[in-house]
């Protein structure tokens, strides 16, 4: 168990998602020997430099060859051993998509795939490096678990949980250094069980990844305007915590927010579930619309996609007004 403290939460926030993943894996690897860690020439970008130096037998570099990365991991995982593999999200979920489908889907081998720099954080590097469709693609693969932690603490808790999870999973890392802090201390984290951060009677905001922090800000802004919003951290977007959604059905509006395409991710998962429910509230699905945004700074990208506190708050208010909710 990695000890969670306020100071560590701050440290992980400063380091960002990728380095926090590397730190978590290193700390666990020092304590237990039942897993391997691989990357595709992105040891440093995965925060794994120390692990490679300290525990060289546990780290395997596949070179810039993501398809082979997944395949070799499958061979290593064949005896049930857990293998963590990482690369930038489009390269590992799209370049190697069919290897992921065969080995992690069809054969259900015990591989934990980590998509680095997902969402828009790769900013000036352009759309080649953004994770827009990765959540949708991974969610569509039968038998795949998809997790998108909200902050550093939740990344660490996810990595810990994945070490004892004997099924394939995709860990989607959003946000960079200066990651917003959602959790300052330890949390009761269970794969597939959403965390309610705030209760509210008017609107239910369900978010994943970096957008959980924004959801909290939006709920506060709405509160100042007399709108009472709940906030849920839906860290596991597959399998979806449908019991948690059932509890939100008495609201006037359901809002989903994700730093991902609105086609196929969290918003779609919630909509797919709610489609079969009569007399349900309408859903406002916020995320990256069906586009490649114009590359620029992270903030510039969030503004383009309407994923800032102000834009989200306005979108919620507009939806409520337009529908007389």
């Amino acid at each position: 168990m990695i000890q969670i403290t306020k100071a560590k939460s701050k440290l992980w926030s400063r380091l960002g998602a990728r380095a926090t993943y590397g730190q978590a894996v290193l700390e666990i690897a020092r304590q237990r020997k039942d897993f391997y860690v691989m990357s595709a020439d992105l040891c440093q970008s995965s925060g794994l430099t120390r692990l490679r130096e300290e525990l060289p037998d546990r780290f395997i570099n596949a070179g810039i060859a993501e398809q082979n990365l997944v395949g070799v991991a499958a061979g290593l995982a064949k005896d049930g051993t857990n293998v963590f593999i990482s690369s930038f999200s489009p390269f590992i979920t799209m370049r190697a998509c069919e290897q992921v489908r065969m080995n992690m889907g069809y054969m259900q081998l015990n591989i934990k795939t980590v998509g680095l720099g997902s969402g828009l954080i790769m900013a000036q590097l352009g759309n080649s490096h953004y994770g827009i469709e990765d959540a949708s693609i991974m969610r569509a693969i039968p038998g795949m678990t998809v997790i998108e932690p909200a902050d550093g603490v939740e990344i660490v808790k996810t990595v810990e949980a994945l070490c004892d999870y004997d099924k394939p999973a995709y860990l989607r890392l959003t946000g960079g250094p200066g990651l917003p802090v959602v959790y300052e201390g330890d949390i009761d984290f269970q794969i597939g069980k959403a965390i309610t951060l705030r209760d509210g009677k008017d609107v239910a905001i369900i978010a994943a990844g970096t957008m959980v922090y924004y959801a909290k800000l939006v709920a506060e802004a709405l509160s100042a305007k007399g709108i009472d919003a709940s906030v849920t951290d839906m860290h596991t977007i597959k399998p979806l915590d449908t019991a948690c959604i059932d509890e939100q059905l008495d609201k006037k509006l359901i809002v989903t927010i994700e730093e991902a395409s609105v086609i196929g991710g969290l918003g779609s998962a919630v909509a797919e579930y709610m489609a079969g429910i009569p007399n349900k509230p309408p859903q406002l699905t916020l995320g990256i619309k069906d586009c490649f945004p114009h590359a620029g700074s992270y903030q510039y990208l969030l503004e383009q996609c309407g994923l800032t506190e102000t834009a989200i708050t306005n979108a919620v208010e507009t939806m409520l007004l337009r529908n007389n909710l």
Partner: protein
Amino acid sequence: MEVMAVLYGAVMNTTNKSISYDARDKFILSKGHGVLGLYPALAEFGIIDESMLDTFLCDGSDLIAHPVMKPEIGLESSSGSLGQGISMAVGLALAAKKKGYSYQTYVVCGNGECNEGSVWEASMSAVSYELDNFTLFVDNNHMQSDGKSMDILSVSDKYTGMFRALGFQTIEIDGHNIPEIYDAFCEPHVSGFPKVIVGNTVKGKGVSFMENNNDWHHNRLTKNQYEDALAELRGGL
């Protein structure tokens, strides 16, 4: 066909069903469409019951047109998508190295499959990881789905040289000649090097109307054709 007969009949230890995971040799059929050579080998050497062959392509059967992973009936991986099995075999061989497992890893791929870039990614890593417990057999029948391999990619006669250039211990043989196949598998690994055996074969070997005829890449026999083919094969024994 012959390569699987030799592997299961004389090279691998998998006919002993009680053997543990860490000692059981691993066989990956990367060219999954070659499964009609694999299932009879599993039956012939007692890994599956011969009656199971009659379930081939029946709904609910474990025996479909590509292998589906089920170690208890000798199927170590699911394949059907070309260019993937070699990577898994590299991982299996690497796991054996790291954990001190005694098994050997064997993988069969096709010459057409060598068009896939992932074959070369996997091959580069097999050499880099110094996998001298890994053997790749290339079933080099000079043909693929759209016809003669040389007409499709003009470098298709260079695979042996490409493996050698990467640093493989490279052996080229007649892929139908049982003693040659056996000798090639038995030739000890050069320490620190993976081995590749390029077996030159004839597509549809032994049935005159099928040999080098791509109409039989995927086709069904009439009853008369079946009897003619069987007579020719029996005559060749």
